[in-house]
């Protein structure tokens, strides 16, 4: 490409982005909208959340990054789903899309829908169409999020109590100050760090594990239906990791919530998740129950992931690693995104991106290799 052409292309991108930004800003300014715009129906009332062909794009200066491109899955009530994949495969972006916390106007939900089942209100809403004011009522209340870095997720200049009670007071406007404090202490007790004067401590006076417990307490304080945990244990050391995971599992059952657990740690998933979604370059390559994924992995990428996991009692000189890197998210190829790193390619892989095919009722994979298996079974 000559320099002139390149300049022309960048100009076009800028123009296109400006249009997208304008639309976005226009939508953001609407604080309220009529209910008919965002109330929908769940496909299955047993689900707490349904992702339907979700597309989240980032309109950057060098082109559109399709961080999440057509992702569909659902989370059942009271179940834990693990979302796995390498860095940059769109796990976190999926979760931020649910929370409506994408860095706008660059990052936007470009298509599809996220249907959320408001069990208490007996209705379902499409989060992608929700106006700001309605979103604020759901965030932290019905859907809450636990972030990756406990060291930086708490505001350094406010006390733990301030930050905990703020959340409770916000979603329970009728609660008295005394009750709010009692509730804050109760959540701290739930996460096992209730101590005298705890509410008056600043985040820097706590260790990483304790801070993560505070973050979890904050997330649980309003009894959410869905907890999104974005790599909740990555920044913690191994002993604390196990404690935090146990805690999450225990609390989930206590308040009967669903968990969307985002991680790249297969061990964590194996321990926690009922269902697993494997993502690669913004798409789902395989999904199924924990048993399907761990004992019958079907996609070459999942198989690679399993192989690169260290096993106890097994001696290897070198841990397996999948060759190559995640493809450039701008200008993704037409064919399967994993093709260049795949060791099991067939001729058909040169063709269009493979559709998701069902191997069993729960197990789905998008790979040409498995087409024959399905046909054989039929």
């Amino acid at each position: 490409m000559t320099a002139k052409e390149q300049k022309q292309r960048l100009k076009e991108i800028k123009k296109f982005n400006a249009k997208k930004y304008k639309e976005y800003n226009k939508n953001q300014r609407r604080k309220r909208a009529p209910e008919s715009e965002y109330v929908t129906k769940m496909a299955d009332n047993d689900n707490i959340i349904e992702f339907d062909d979700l597309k989240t794009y980032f309109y950057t200066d060098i082109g559109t990054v399709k961080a999440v491109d057509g992702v569909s899955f659902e989370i059942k009530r009271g179940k834990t789903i693990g979302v796995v994949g390498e860095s940059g495969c769109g796990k976190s972006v999926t979760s931020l899309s649910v929370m409506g916390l994408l860095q706008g106007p660059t990052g936007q939900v470009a298509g599809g829908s996220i249907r959320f089942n408001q069990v208490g209100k007996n209705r379902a809403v499409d989060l992608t169409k929700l106006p700001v004011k309605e979103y604020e009522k759901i965030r932290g209340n019905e859907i809450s999020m636990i972030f990756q870095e406990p060291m930086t997720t708490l505001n350094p200049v406010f006390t733990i109590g301030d930050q905990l009670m703020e959340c409770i007071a916000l979603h329970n406007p009728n609660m008295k100050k005394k009750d709010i404090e009692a509730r804050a202490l109760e959540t701290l007790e739930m996460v096992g760090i209730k101590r005298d004067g705890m509410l008056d401590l600043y985040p820097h006076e706590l260790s990483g594990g304790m801070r993560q417990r505070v973050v979890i307490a904050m997330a649980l304080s309003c009894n959410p239906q869905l907890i999104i945990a974005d790599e909740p244990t990555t920044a913690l050391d191994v002993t604390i990791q196990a404690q935090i995971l146990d805690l999450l599992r225990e609390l989930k059952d206590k308040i009967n919530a669903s968990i969307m657990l985002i991680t790249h740690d297969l061990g964590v998933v194996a321990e926690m998740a009922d269902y697993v979604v494997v993502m690669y370059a913004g798409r789902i390559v395989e999904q199924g129950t924990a048993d399907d994924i761990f004992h019958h992995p079907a996609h070459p990428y999942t198989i690679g992931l399993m192989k690169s996991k260290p096993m106890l009692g097994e001696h290897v000189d070198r841990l397996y690693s999948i060759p190559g890197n995640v493809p450039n998210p701008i200008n993704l190829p037409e064919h399967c995104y994993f093709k260049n790193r795949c060791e099991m390619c067939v001729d058909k892989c040169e063709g269009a991106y493979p559709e998701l095919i069902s191997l069993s009722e729960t197990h789905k994979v998008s790979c040409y290799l498995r087409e024959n298996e399905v046909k054989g079974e039929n």
Partner: protein
Amino acid sequence: MRQYIIKRVVVSFIVLFLVSILLYSIARSVPGDYVANVTGGNPNITPEMQQRMRELYGLDKGIFEGYVSWLKDALHGDLGTSFKYQKPVVEVIKSYMAPTFALAFISMVLEILLAIPLGIIAARKQYSMTDYTIVAIAIMGISLPSFFFASVLRRWLSIGLGILPISGMVTARANYQGFDLFIDYAKHFTLPIIVFVINGIGGLLRYVRTNMLEVLSADYVRTARAKGLPERKVIGKHAFRNTLIPIVTMVGGMIPSLFSGAVITEGIFSLEGLGRVALDSVYNGDIPYLMGFNMFIAVLTLIGTLISDILYAVVDPRVRY
């Protein structure tokens, strides 16, 4: 905390001592002393008379001797007598302080009140037209020379529209009393304050904007949003308290400038303030005044940094002394 302050005060005295040596040496090393300046060009003055005058003013001693005698007096609270005004230095400073302080204080308050909200708005709408406009005005304010900007304003508001006086502090021979006098002062100070604010706002505004941008991308701001807080509270409470930390240090550093005055602005508008007097004293070689004034600024600078350090601990719980 108390121990920290005591330590800081002790260190401050050492710094003051060193600063005074430096200031005195520089002031005395300037070519052409006070005597040469006042008697220059007068044919009736003989070198002997000059010599006698130097002895009288204490300018015959060397830098070291002169400094020692200045320091002795200063330690007894006597900053000497200004050569030019023939009054104690402290009195001279006192009598010229009011206009400078008024000008700088009002401007500083206005700067803070304007720079912080504008900086926050610019950061919130980064890369938008609003952002570009605010930043452009800020940069224009920094880059416009005050004498040029002052001239433009005077051409427009004083000569063109005739609504504001062109210079000075009061209308001569008007003899206003009470409230009328206050209004008269206010009118005379409007233009200098505008020039001062526009010139000074840029730095603080850009500082606020950069800090806000940094804080807005912080994880705890995302956490605040994830709690469901409305944007107004996310910015006004969680983000603002954190941007305040660096701003406090900057505002503490602005305290000495309250008294040092804007030499140029005061000069343009012929305001009888400390800045102008200080400039005169440099021209004349009025050593006692120069020393007194500079030491006063040095003390204020040290107090300013101490205050900002203490405030730093107040706004940021992680800082403990």
